[in-house]
């Protein structure tokens, strides 16, 4: 069965992306899924943590299920740096030979993991929404949206190792914190040459209004089907009246109707509100992965065959702009 194990590649690794920890929980989600995969392969999950003074994260990852934590702790690693991390991590991978290596598809993950995969001359799939072990071959089946989001592609990395994948935050569920947990700690003696051709001059929290999208109980999303920037902006007043936040699809961002921090989906945010109203959006998988966690989805679209209706608990076939203006009129009178 397990061809590649004959060549000595064993173990499931997870890259410890701890920036913005507490909000950013993707590493915990990957530990949880990693344990499932590892159980099927008869191996364990190791979380790789690079940085300076990273002990708290090693302990958190232990509490959330890591079997082992591999730490490279050094003052020069304080900031995430692509080239230095690639240099160090590629050496670790070549020494310890994990069969699978996962990272969250955070902005850093999406910048660092491809370069690492190229350094290691191996395959990488992006923004996976599902991961399974193939029962016959033991290969990792990596599912990502394809063809503009209409279908899912199951991808394999048959001959190269490790099998690498970035995973969209919010797809998997973390395990709860267990203070009784223990894990192995591994401190590899790796060369640290932090020579960077990219120097960080300044870093400050991003000022652009996040709108608290990820915490909101109600999210109103507008797509290109709303017709214009003015129509899209109705959503802001509705959000204010109903007590919610506004999100957008990529075509809306590309048209400059609102700022990128409101983008939902594959390359944007994932939300899990109680109620989500999605207006004038067709329902490409690249968008819907960002909203699949919503408890109740209400969709408004002119096209009765729009894929979004398969994603909705209630679908209204009609002109989104008109329906929303009528709603706004009624609410203005009452609230």
């Amino acid at each position, binding site marked *: 069965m397990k061809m590649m194990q004959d060549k000595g590649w064993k173990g499931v690794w997870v890259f410890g992306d701890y920036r913005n920890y507490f909000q950013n929980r993707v590493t915990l989600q990957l530990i949880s899924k990693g344990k499932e995969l590892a159980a099927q392969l008869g191996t364990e999950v190791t979380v790789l943590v690079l940085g300076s003074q990273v002990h708290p994260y090693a*302990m958190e990852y232990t509490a959330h299920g890591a079997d082992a934590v591999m730490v490279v702790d050094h003052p020069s690693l304080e900031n995430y740096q692509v080239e230095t991390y690639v240099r160090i991590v590629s050496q670790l991978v070549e020494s310890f030979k994990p069969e699978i290596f996962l990272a969250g598809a955070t902005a850093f993950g999406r910048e660092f993991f491809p370069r690492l995969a190229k350094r290691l001359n191996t395959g990488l799939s992006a923004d996976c929404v599902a991961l399974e072990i193939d029962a016959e071959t033991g290969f990792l089946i990596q599912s990502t949206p394809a063809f503009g989001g209409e279908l899912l592609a199951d991808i394999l990395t048959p001959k190269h190792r490790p099998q690498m994948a970035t995973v969209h935050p919010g797809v998997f569920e973390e395990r709860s*914190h267990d*203070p009784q947990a*223990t894990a192995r*700690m591994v*401190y590899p*003696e790796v060369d640290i040459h932090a020579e960077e051709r990219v120097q960080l001059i300044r870093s400050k929290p991003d000022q652009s209004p996040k709108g608290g999208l990820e915490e909101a109980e109600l999210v109103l999303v507008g797509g290109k089907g709303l017709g214009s920037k003015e129509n899209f902006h109705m959503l802001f007043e509705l959000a204010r009246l109903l007590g919610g936040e506004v999100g957008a699809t990529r075509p809306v961002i590309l048209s400059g109707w609102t700022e990128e921090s409101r983008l939902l989906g594959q390359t944007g945010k994932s939300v899990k509100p109680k109620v989500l109203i999605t207006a004038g959006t067709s329902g490409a998988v690249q968008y819907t992965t960002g909203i699949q966690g919503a408890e109740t989805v209400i969709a408004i679209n002119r096209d009765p065959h729009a894929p979004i209706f398969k994603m909705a608990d209630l679908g209204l076939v009609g002109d989104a702009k008109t329906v929303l203006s009528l709603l706004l009129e009624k609410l203005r009178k009452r609230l």
Partner: protein
Amino acid sequence: MKFRESLVSAHHNYLVNQMLSPGFLLGDLNSKEDFWFLADIVPAGMNEPNIHGRIFDHHGHFVLEMGFNKITENPEGCVIEPLAGGFQIRHAGGEPLLRVHTVVFANGYLTRIQGKLYDPEGKTRVEPLLDGIQVFGKGTLALTRRQLFL
């Protein structure tokens, strides 16, 4: 590639030899004559480190014995004083002997120890290393079971 290994607890760890460890023991804790030092495992539900040991100075003279963070034998008149987040032991003359400090973050605790401790032959067994300690001689660097109970 060479690597060092330890254990880590989700709840509480000490920093020793620049590694996390749930608890470590130097020497034999039953010895009445020799140096020994125990930073014991802290179970979930408790949040204070448990420090015990028999400590000597650089001439090999016996200084003190301690258990559960308290001095139990004190021929030299050392003084123990509380600190925010821990405690400190000083020689009668005022020089610091041992400092124990615990930080809490999120759901876990990390204890850093600082001090320079010797055995009856005057050999260094514990000394400061960055913000923690380096230890020498026989011992178990990552305990799996709690050693001493009240």
